[in-house]
């Protein structure tokens, strides 16, 4: 009986972790190619969550379907952000980029506060309380759908980078900035595209997160931190690492919540981050630089 509880909690952790992993994947793609740390990542996530909430509340549209248009909106936002705001900062020091993105984060978070107010919003779908019974496991339907969708989006992105010419061009920019320019690639455009794709991941993940948790405007920084932890544990710049890191952190947080107290699970997560930074800075799945 008691092992069933652990198993159930672990499965739930895996599924939530996949969604967080998708969000972190956006951060990882952006850093892996552009070498800019997106400190507005969590705020972009909350923007996507609010989009999902509004679409559901006004038009009754299911966030799992709206994932695609929301990802599209975030793509455009990310593209524009990189093209006009971040691109001049590419060769500036890290703290300069940091302040720029913190400013963007402040504007986004408080823009949401102006529009939606401080109250928590959520999405209540008809299948919110459904679940699947698989042997001894009871799997929450919402989380199962979200987890599967996260895998699908990540797979699509992976295929894009591996199989298309555009994806190969972006990887070329990541490998060798000067070389990419020499062979005539339009690096600023590819960078903007990359940022857009990273933002699209955030859009898809945000739409799914709206199903799982309530959203308030100041939620951003905690999402940003979570995304950092996941990509560093998984390996900054490694795509499979981000998903695997998401699963790992999801399971650890879920089990820590069960074994200790739920509010203290963050301590375990940050303890793991410190250990990884010290003993395996390239991440569990990352390659040595």
């Amino acid at each position, binding site marked *: 009986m008691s092992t069933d509880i652990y198993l159930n909690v672990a499965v739930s952790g895996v599924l939530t972790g996949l969604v967080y992993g998708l969000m972190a994947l956006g951060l990882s793609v952006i850093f892996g190619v552009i070498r800019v*740390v997106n400190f507005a990542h969590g705020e972009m996530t909350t923007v996507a969550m609010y989009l999902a909430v509004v679409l559901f509340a006004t038009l009754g549209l299911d966030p799992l379907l709206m994932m695609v248009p929301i990802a599209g909106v975030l793509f455009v936002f990310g593209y524009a952000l990189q093209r006009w*705001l971040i691109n*001049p900062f590419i060769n*500036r020091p*890290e*703290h*300069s980029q*940091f*302040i*720029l993105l*913190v*400013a*963007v*984060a*402040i*504007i986004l*978070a*408080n*823009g*949401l*506060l*102006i529009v939606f*107010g*401080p109250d928590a919003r959520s999405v209540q779908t008809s299948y919110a309380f459904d679940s699947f019974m698989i042997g001894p496991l009871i799997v929450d339907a919402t989380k199962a759908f979200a987890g599967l969708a996260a895998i699908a989006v990540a797979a699509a992105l992976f295929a894009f980078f591996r199989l298309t010419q555009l994806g190969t061009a972006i990887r070329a920019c990541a490998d060798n900035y000067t070389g990419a320019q020499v062979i005539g690639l339009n690096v600023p455009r590819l960078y903007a595209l990359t940022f857009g794709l990273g933002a699209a991941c955030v859009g898809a993940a945000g739409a799914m997160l709206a199903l799982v948790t309530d959203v308030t*405007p100041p939620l951003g*920084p905690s999402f940003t*931190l979570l995304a*950092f*932890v996941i990509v*560093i544990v998984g390996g900054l710049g490694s795509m499979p690492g981000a998903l695997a890191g998401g699963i790992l952190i999801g399971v650890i947080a879920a089990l820590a919540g069960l074994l200790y*107290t739920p*509010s*203290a699970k*963050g*301590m375990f997560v*940050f*303890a793991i*981050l*410190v250990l990884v*930074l*010290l*003993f395996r*800075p390239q991440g569990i799945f990352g390659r040595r630089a």
Partner: protein
Amino acid sequence: MIARLAENVSPRAATALVLLLLALLVAPWFANDYLLTVLILIFYFAYTGQAWNIMMGFTGQLSLGHAIYIGLGAYTTAVLFSFSGISPWLGSFAAILVTVLCGAMIGFLAFRFRVSGVYFAILTIAFAEFARIGFDHLSYVGGSAGFFLPVANYTQSDLWTLRGKPIMFYYLSLGMTVAAVVMCHIMISSRLGYFWLAIREDEEAARAVGINTFRYKLIAVVISAAMTSLAGVFFAFYYNNLFPEEVFSINRSIELILAPIFGGLGTLFGPILGAFMLTGLAETLTTTLAALGVDVPGAKQVFYGICLLLVITVLPDGVWPWLYRRLGLAGRCE
């Protein structure tokens, strides 16, 4: 001593500095309580900015977790005062000891394991967040319900226990800021300061010429941590309440680095100018919006964010280096 301090300062700059200090010394006679609290806030940010600047501006180590030193300093002295009646002046030594140990630990781990750049920044965030959640669950100091200092009557000021009126905190914060500037000036024009600058510019080259970079980076972290802990002491006794969500929050770490970056990283006067400009801007926005009858939460911060965006785009080195040239304050030696 005085002669050494005046070194590299042009007569024009020295005059301006003395006039500014005099104006700030007599300000309480002309300023109302509101203006006084704004000035206290400005000095708080000028002081913490100065402390953070040692690590980032001088040594080039980006810390985004300075809230941990604020929080540890605040909690150490507050607990000693509330439970044992120990004066914050004596408690400060304990606070410095605690934060020096904490900073040394973080610095030792980071520098020994070659964690640098963005990774170092995230490591500092991780420690601050760890402390935040830890204090949330530390029932000895009230956990997430907060820790409150006994509030005395405000008709009299007691400097020894730091219970009293805003004017006492005004002079205290002014004194701390001046002391921090003097200390930073002495350090940066010493052997230690030159080692720091060498590490900031090129760590490999610094090591190549024989500087023990590990030791001098560690010294920077420890000094910065100790200075920041005193800001935490001030925070605790000025606000009289401590919540882990407040003192250890990532927002606390971010707000204290804005002033030096805005004003000019690695400069002595940058953090002060930045604190004046940013706090002044925030307060002006508050009063303007109130006067216009606009009561939209978040509107002020959006405008604040836009200003930040503009300054970092137009003046990436901060306002002070630009203003310094425009005002012709540079000495002949430059």
